[in-house]
């Protein structure tokens, strides 16, 4: 942070990159909007990558898997067993595996873009995608809850059992707000904010290094090495967070679905 702050103290000429730098010029501009952005291309590319990889891996269906099939089975088995089976459990967890599997790898690939040189842009650094993902999950668990418990589900989800009646006026609004209003917002913003922040830090470090290297002062030039070291450390941390956020998002989805399925026992 000190290294990052140095140039600002030195002269007013350093302008750090802001949120607006997130909006790269559209690849194919149209209408009043930004047109076809890099994020859109990356999202489409991610679908192609994931579908191609897993169809190739699963296609052979050998009992003794080859390397590709083994890698695919490991990845699929991770979501199937470590997330779906462990969290949702029961006999019908398999119904939710496709959703969780798609969510995990869709978000993972779109996040990892941020760690790949040249691409270096996580798709969810734009909030729209995160809203869509959280929205899909939001409606999914509400529909599951209603299907499972009927309209009584809303009572089960907002009125916790075993709470004295005189506390209910406080608890019920809190439950409504936390379950039905705050949950989708945090679910989407958690993903979006981590990706945006990670991307901003990488941009900031990049432009900071550039600025420092251009300076006449040898000490300031040397300081760019510090920024570089910090940037590499942040890059590692970001790569970890990218994978972690995909996992957290999927895990929360599984927890929400489980909560909707077993609303009566909560």
């Amino acid at each position, binding site marked *: *942070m000190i290294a*990052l*702050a140095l140039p*600002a*103290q030195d002269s007013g000429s350093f*302008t*750090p990159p*802001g*949120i*607006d730098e*997130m*909006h790269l010029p559209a690849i194919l501009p149209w209408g009043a*909007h*930004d*047109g*076809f*952005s890099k*994020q*859109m291309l990356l*999202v*489409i590319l*991610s*679908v192609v990558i*994931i*579908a191609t990889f*897993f*169809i190739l891996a*699963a*296609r052979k*269906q*050998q*009992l003794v*898997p080859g390397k590709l*099939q083994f890698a*695919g*089975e490991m990845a*699929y088995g991770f979501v*199937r067993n470590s997330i779906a089976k462990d969290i949702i459990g029961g006999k019908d967890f*398999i119904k939710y*595996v*496709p*959703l969780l*599997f*798609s969510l995990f790898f*869709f978000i993972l690939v779109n996040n990892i873009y941020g760690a790949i040189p040249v691409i270096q842009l996580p*798709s969810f650094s*734009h*909030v*729209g*995608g995160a*809203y*869509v*993902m959280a929205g*899909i999950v939001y409606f999914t668990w509400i529909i599951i809850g209603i299907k499972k418990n009927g309209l009584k589900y809303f009572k089960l989800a907002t009125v916790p059992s075993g709470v004295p009646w005189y506390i209910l006026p406080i608890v019920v609004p809190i439950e409504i707000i936390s379950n039905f209003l705050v949950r989708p917002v945090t679910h989407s*913003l958690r993903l*979006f904010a981590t990706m*945006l922040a990670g991307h901003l830090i990488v941009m900031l470090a990049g432009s900071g290094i550039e600025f420092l290297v251009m300076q006449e002062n040898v000490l300031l030039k040397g300081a760019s090495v510090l920024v570089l070291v910090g940037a590499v450390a942040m890059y590692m941390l970001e790569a970890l967070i990218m994978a972690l956020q995909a996992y957290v998002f999927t895990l929360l989805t599984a927890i929400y679905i489980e909560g909707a399925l077993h609303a009566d026992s909560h």
Partner: protein
Amino acid sequence: MNQLIISAATEGEAKSNPLVPNVWEMGVVLVGFAVLMYIVVKFVVPMFEKTFAERAEAIEGGIAKAEAAQAEASAALEEYKQQLTDARAEANRIREEARAEGAQILADLKAKAAAESARITEQAHAAIESERQAAVVSLRSEVGTLATTLAGRIVGEALTDDQRAARVVDRFLADVETQSAGAAK
């Protein structure tokens, strides 16, 4: 540093709100995810699940087969052991029988030999008896002749007359008999 943060914040707020989404991007993500979901539901998950099920079945089938083989092997072992025991018992029985038979044969032979020896002894006795009888008879006649001859020589009188000779001999013998009978008394 404060200046930096403030400038970044004001700049960001002034030009664009990062929380306002781009509708087109949302559409792309929604459609992209829907396509991915379709592919996953239609192809990826069924293929993986089928492979998993087949693998589980293969492993369970292998275990069942191994168990069957083991059961078969232990049954064969049991049968073999049973046969071995039977064979041992059979051998024992045969040995016992042979021993009994041998004893029987030995006893028979002994009996037969005893009978034979008895018969031979009997025959020998009979032969000796008959020879003794013969000897007695011949002795009697010979003693008569000898005695007659002797007496004739001693007496000097011809005892050729058979009738007389026979009378003398009978008398002599009778004397002998009475003498021996008196001795016995």
